[in-house]
């Protein structure tokens, strides 16, 4: 069981990452592709949290006597995730605003029809 507990989160994180990649690679609607980006970023954030996760862990603050440092959750990945979330918000916001402008120009969000730039 403990193996399952330790690796279930990784399976979930990489599951989300691969779902996100699949959506980005196969969908033709720009909004769906952006949703895929969102899922991918969530998966990466979940993965980072897993790296520092301790089962039954506490917050890494010596708030009362008798707390064991071994049982504390690693705070660094959480700080990383906060930064990554902010970056992800910026990327998604920019992507959505570009999608609005793209729709104004082309009247469609289907990436198969938007092909003026090519090799």
């Amino acid at each position: 069981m403990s193996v399952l507990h330790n690796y279930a989160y990784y399976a979930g994180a990489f599951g989300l990452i691969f779902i996100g990649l699949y959506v980005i690679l196969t969908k033709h609607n720009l909004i769906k592709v952006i949703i895929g980006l969102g899922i991918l970023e969530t998966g990466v954030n979940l993965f980072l949290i897993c790296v520092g996760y301790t089962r039954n862990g506490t917050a890494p603050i010596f708030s009362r006597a008798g707390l064991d440092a071994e049982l504390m959750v690693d705070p660094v990945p959480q700080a990383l995730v906060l930064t990554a979330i902010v970056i992800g918000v910026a990327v998604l916001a920019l992507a959505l605003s570009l999608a609005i402008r793209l729709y104004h120009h082309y009247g469609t969000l289907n990436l198969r029809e938007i092909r003026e730039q090519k090799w």
Partner: protein
Amino acid sequence: MVNPVLLIAVPLALAFAIPVLSLFSSRAAKLVPPIALSFNLVLSLLLLPKVLENPVIVSIGGWQPPFCINLVAGPVGVLFSAIISLAGLLVSVYAVDYIKEGATEKYHTLYLLLLTGATGVVLTGDIFNLFVFFEILCISSYALVAYKGDRAGIESAVKYLIQGAVGSSLLLIGIGLLYGQFGTLNMADIAQHIESVGRISVFVPMVLIITGLGVEAAIFPLNAWLPDAHSSAPSSISAILSGIAIEVGVYAVVRVLFTIFGASSILLFVACVGMLTLLIGELCAFSQNNIKRMLAYSSIGQIGLIVFALAMATSYAVTGGLFQVVSHTLAKALLFLAAGYMIYRTGSLDISALEGIGKTMPLTSLGFAVGAFSLIGLPPFVGFPSKFLIVRAALASGKSLFIVLIGLALLAAVIEGAYFLRVVQVLYFKAGKNNPERKEAPVVALIPIVIFMILIIAIGIYPKLITGVLNSAASELLNRMDYIKSVVG
């Protein structure tokens, strides 16, 4: 004592001062980027002699290196930050007059943020910090590609954003895997312990990080966004993207490969990929009729040559690769700046529309010709010593694979010569319509063009001006032990 933190802090603070300042005077807001970047240039040049003796390590927050975020201002970092601020300064002077339409204060803010991100990437000693600065660089460049808001710009920006965001996610997964194994984000500390774990558990994060950074560095299978983004951005942004952004990507790849992973087995593969990038870039550039698209493909080719030279990993070769970075930055920025006003005056991106422009815009055309000759590698210009050094390093390495590959590189140089000389021929030797609207570019734009020409010719005639710095930068990249010792003791 000059503190390298100022190289990042001052432009970052000034970038966000621009929107406030533009409420009072939009003329003053325009002048902020040149001021910030000239400050950075002076600071980098002051730091340069100091870091040639000993790298300056700055620990932020008062903690000791493995626990804090640190900046490592070694010869490589300061060399790159000097190039970034020099090219950035000249291009920002050009942009004062060139960028007239749209929300100009947003342009200048994003421009300064882009260069802050680039400076941060080359100076940081912490791998997550590298990711953050990389994202600053990437997000501001996505927005700047779309600055004009026309069909082509928006479409290329979307393409660039999706590929870039997937690349950054891969980079972040790689960083997470490294943190999970080593419990540290300090590059020197990771490098110290990298041999203590199994090969496969190092190989997976290495592949993820190199792939993620490779998107921004435009290494061959990952560069589909580049020709669109570089050709539909405003010309001053194309100059910065081609001259600085992709070089910073290559720097990050090389820093990770050499310093963190100390990889030697993968370098042959990287050299072959670099050569493939060079050949594909030059062949595609040859078949273009759109002048900016041609320059963008030529950037892909040059990046391939730089990657190939750095992956040979001898001290001659790395010096040559870094020299090629300098020469490509100067020449490509000059070419895009000159092309910018040619396109502005003729209103067309077609090479054939530039017929006879050598007579009506003599200085701009001369700038284009100098940049083109330098990229081809003709003698009095800076491209000659850099390419010569790479060829010499490949011959001196004694490996038959490198000798075969450098033969291919020379073939690519011939192709490069063919398409650049075709443009120069159109500029000077085709009689065009005598259109009074095709007058010379304004003086503010000519100043950076002339300074770039002077730099290209000066370093080309007297390469010793910078070879000292390049030599110690190359030895910093190759001696990872010295790097580790200087940071964590």
